[in-house]
């Protein structure tokens, strides 16, 4: 697949000359055609700024933004074939839902007939056929969200930008919208760039993820790559839970730290019990356990003094303060720069 968007060494400063803030710092990445691409990172790492640079709502201080090979860095927002679903939805309060959705096409001077048809199609795509005549204030949060989506998608942009679009929704609605968004992306075949600070959401929805760290890309890869082969401790810690212990504590003859995910270790509670797969085994004491339904987390303090978390599907017959052993899956050990 070819690249839809290429960002080359883009930097964006905020603040004064004496005290500049590099919101985006010499950042490069590529987004492919028809890809569900996610920008993931903690609050303040520059995700929104990067989206606004792509949309044209901010201008880059250095670097290039290539859309289908053409540099659009100098184009104003209203000339870029890119649309945004804003975090606040930003629906026009004085226009009906249908007028909101038709706004982009009408600003492009499209035919009234085409606008009407496209608006009706977009409402149908969102399963909101009967809401065209309503005003945004008469809709629930989830419905406003879908109108904001329809308003952007109806223009068939080359890229759809979504800024933390789901974070305002409650848990259940959010799960539904995650599925809905994936469906829309598949059906419309539009490239999505989705911003979130929720690693679970990123893992479950994305074709590829860029983990951002202070205005830079920490790692860019598929969810599996990011999860199982994080290139840095920052990435490993940001995505899910990751235990890091000194290699000698695991009886390994190397230096540095070794990481492993809670589910890549087994808790051995009986003397002489053997793991299914042979690998490093370390001794320790059970400190705490927390039951989460599908999984139970066991917090173990190793004899080396380090604390690790182990996950098991079962609630094992073991109590706090018991002596236990932790067996690691050798193939799943994470070795990365600190």
């Amino acid at each position, binding site marked *: 697949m070819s690249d839809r968007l290429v960002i080359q060494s883009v930097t964006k400063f905020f603040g004064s000359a004496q005290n500049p803030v590099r919101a985006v710092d010499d950042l490069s990445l590529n987004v492919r055609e028809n890809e569900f691409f996610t920008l993931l990172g903690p609050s303040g790492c520059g995700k929104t700024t990067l989206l606004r640079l792509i*949309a*044209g*709502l901010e201008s880059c201080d250095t670097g290039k933004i290539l859309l289908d090979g053409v540099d659009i860095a100098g184009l*104003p*927002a*209203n*000339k870029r074939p*890119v*649309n*945004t679903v*804003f975090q*606040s939805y*930003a*629906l*026009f*309060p*004085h226009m009906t839902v249908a007028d909101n959705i038709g*706004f*982009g096409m009408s*600003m*492009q001077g499209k035919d009234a007939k085409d606008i009407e048809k496209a608006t009706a199609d977009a409402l149908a795509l969102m399963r909101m056929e009967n809401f065209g005549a309503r*005003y*945004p*204030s*008469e809709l629930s949060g989830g419905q406003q969200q879908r109108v904001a989506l329809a*308003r*952007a998608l109806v*223009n068939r942009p080359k890229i759809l930008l979504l800024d933390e679009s789901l974070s305002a929704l409650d848990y259940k609605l959010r799960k539904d919208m995650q599925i809905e968004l994936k469906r829309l992306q598949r059906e419309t075949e539009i490239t999505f760039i989705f911003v979130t600070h929720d690693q679970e959401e990123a893992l479950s929805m994305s074709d590829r993820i860029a983990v951002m760290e202070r205005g830079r890309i920490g790692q860019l890869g598929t969810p599996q790559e990011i999860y199982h082969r994080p290139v840095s401790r920052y990435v490993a810690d940001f995505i899910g839970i990751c235990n890091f212990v000194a290699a000698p504590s695991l009886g390994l003859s190397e230096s540095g730290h070794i990481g492993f995910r809670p589910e890549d270790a087994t808790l051995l509670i009986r003397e002489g019990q053997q793991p299914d797969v042979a690998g490093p085994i370390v001794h320790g004491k059970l400190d705490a356990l927390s039951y989460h339904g599908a999984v139970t987390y066991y917090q173990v303090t190793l004899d080396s003094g380090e604390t690790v978390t182990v996950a098991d599907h079962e609630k094992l017959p073991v109590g706090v303060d018991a002596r236990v052993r932790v067996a690691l899956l050798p193939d799943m050990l994470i070795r990365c720069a600190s």
Partner: protein
Amino acid sequence: MRLSSGTKLLLPFLAVMTVFFMAPLCIALGYSFMAPDPMGGVKPAFSLSGYQQFLYSADLDGNLQWDTRYLEIIFGSTKLAVMATLACLLIGFPMAWFMATRPAHQRDAWMILITIPFWTNLLIRTYAWILILRSNGLVNRGLLETGIIDAPLELLYNPYAVGMGLVYSYLPFMILPIYSSLERMDWRLVEAAQDLYATRLRILWHVVLPASVPGIVGGTILVFIPTIGSFLAANLLGGGRNMMLGNLIENQFGMARNWPFGAAISVLLIAFVMIGLMLIARRGQGLKGVVG
């Protein structure tokens, strides 16, 4: 009857409203139905003469004759007030836009600048315009000395001078409400419109203007009502030649000593304004469903 504590708290306010607003209106309404006393004041007898005088004048024999002089004054004042309000809107909107788009710390300074004229009495400020516009005033002297003209222009004592005086006096009342709606406007809507291919002009029309409707309505009310009843600008800058409703009312209580007629004009003016406000409020109800 026992009053709820909320109502009790309202009592001082209601008392003030009654004394300062309702009582004068009731007195004006009562006087408008009485007969004039040639020495000033009213004779306590029912009479429709105050209202009759609008349309008819009595000749020496006491016969009533159709007379359009006062209708012309009403028409002229309304026209002048409409023009002044429009001019305030056309000048005030860009100024309010300018203020609202300054960085936050500069906006307060602009607010103070806008309100500085209020530190001086309106009479003095209007009088100052005479010094500027009269035949040997600032403007004419400047134009003469630079040789642009060779005889002073007659800038004073015409409807334009009155209109200019009105615009000058009431412009802040247009700027401030518009500024306040623009300042409260959700600028993310502007970005959304930009993202959706709107040009600057279209953003102004489709997003900014609708958001500033409450300010425009408020400013229009605040400018139109005082201008249609004003008399200072017409007196000083119009030289009494361009009579407005306000001058007419002032005259009846002053030189003409026809209080019932003055009261009747006031009552009609109030009725006119009230009907206008009610129409706006009705529209406002309709708009509310939209703006939510």
